[in-house]
């Protein structure tokens, strides 16, 4: 028999009934939902969540209380907290004088992200060099937009990702929502992904259920980018990447002619043709592929998170092997502690 005593500690919140932490590759913030009977924290307070099992637990969340519901007649509190990056979503950039907005010229993209996060009181803990210069010919002006939204727009130019982890560290990296090979030639993609649990993969004995899926819903095999002052570029490919075979294959129809599923990016911060072309190439690499995914639920594992590369030791089902964790949900309640992943590769 396998028996474990659950553990959950949130300073300022006691008599905890349930905790659900939802992390997602594409979400601005990780969200924690806590049901508890007593609390001494208030809106805006910083909280941490340490959970797992007695003798085997770790911090899985750090963020700010944004909402408190008191439910009667059960007299329970439902507390909603968001991770550190919520400050970037909450900080709306508005110049007092519309003629003198926040602006930069000739800056590396990661420097601009650093400066913008600084407006919201956030420090970029970890980042790579994009080698991508913005505002070469004209100023990049930023006004009437939240810090997160502008940072996300900038990240989308080079198809990078900005996120905060469970310890409050903020990252800006070339993190694609699938396994990276280190062979794309893009900055920040230097080595193949290695699973964080490569020495101790998740065994089949811990998997409660799974769904395996392949689809072409997000596939785009042509990208058009509009920059400033009439600049534009495009990139396309008749073949698309199939992660099941690790080859480029004909996926969209080719008769009577090549069929393009097109995505358009209009980015006013780009003002050179070369960068417009880089942006198109990066986005084609991101989108021109089949999505191979798996939803699995395992016994709760507090050491795994979204944006981790994880390995599943299973030769029976389709879910064995190395995956990118697109989303991760830690759920601790009377029903036990489970972790649910949306995996991609």
């Amino acid at each position, binding site marked *: 028999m*396998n*028996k*474990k005593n659950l553990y959950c500690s949130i300073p300022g919140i006691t008599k905890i009934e349930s905790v659900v932490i939802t992390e997602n590759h594409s979400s601005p913030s990780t969200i924690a939902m806590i049901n508890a009977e007593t609390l001494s924290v208030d809106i805006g307070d910083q909280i941490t969540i340490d959970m797992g099992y007695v003798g085997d637990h770790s911090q899985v969340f750090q963020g700010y209380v944004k909402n408190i519901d008191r439910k009667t007649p059960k007299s329970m509190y439902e507390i909603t907290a968001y991770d550190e990056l919520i400050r970037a979503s909450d900080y709306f950039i508005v110049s007092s004088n519309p003629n003198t907005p926040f602006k930069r010229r000739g800056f590396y993209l990661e420097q601009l992200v650093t400066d913008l996060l600084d407006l919201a009181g956030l420090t970029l803990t970890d980042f790579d060099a994009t080698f991508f210069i913005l505002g070469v010919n004209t100023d990049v002006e930023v006004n009437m937009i939240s810090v997160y939204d502008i940072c996300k727009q900038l990240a989308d130019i080079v198809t990078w990702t900005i996120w905060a982890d469970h310890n409050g560290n903020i990252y800006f990296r070339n993190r694609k929502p699938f396994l990276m090979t280190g062979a794309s030639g893009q900055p920040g993609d230097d080595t193949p992904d290695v699973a964080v649990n490569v020495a101790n993969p998740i065994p089949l*004995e811990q998997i409660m259920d799974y769904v395996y899926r392949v689809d072409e819903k997000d596939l785009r095999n042509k990208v058009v980018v509009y920059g400033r002052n009439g600049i534009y570029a495009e990139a396309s490919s008749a073949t698309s990447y199939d992660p099941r075979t690790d080859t480029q294959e004909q996926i969209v129809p080719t008769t009577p002619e090549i069929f393009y599923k097109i995505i358009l990016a209009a980015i006013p911060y780009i003002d050179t043709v070369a960068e417009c072309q880089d942006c198109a190439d990066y986005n084609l690499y991101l989108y021109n592929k089949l999505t191979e995914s798996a939803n699995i639920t395992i016994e709760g594992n507090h050491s795994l998170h979204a944006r981790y590369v994880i390995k599943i030791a299973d030769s029976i089902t389709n879910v064995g092997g190395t995956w990118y964790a697109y989303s991760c949900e830690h759920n601790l*309640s009377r029903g036990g502690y*489970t972790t649910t992943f949306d995996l991609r590769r």
Partner: protein
Amino acid sequence: MAWTLGGTRVYVIDEDETSKQEIARLQPLTSGTIHHIFGWDDPIIKINGKVVGLTNLNALREMRTTGVTTTLSGDIENRTVLVSSLSFKRNRAYWQTLDITQDCTAPVFDVDIELYEEI
């Protein structure tokens, strides 16, 4: 030892107690059940007995609405409890000799009381 609830005399006939641990059962695809222990439910005590006189009955009825803990005493150690529910039915007795401090024509009630112990 005489049973009292918050100082009110109750002639207990039956007493039973239920308590349990919250244990989740997770079932992996290919191995035995995993048990996750979440915590435990404090005991629920059910008392069946008799109460003599309206004054005593009303004292018990009062406890249903205050939400204040009270003490259950009897042949077990004193326990701090909340009165969750009380149901009663008047007994078809013309004369009572249970409680000699009260008039022999005092009404007798059959009561069922559910108590949540606070630990």
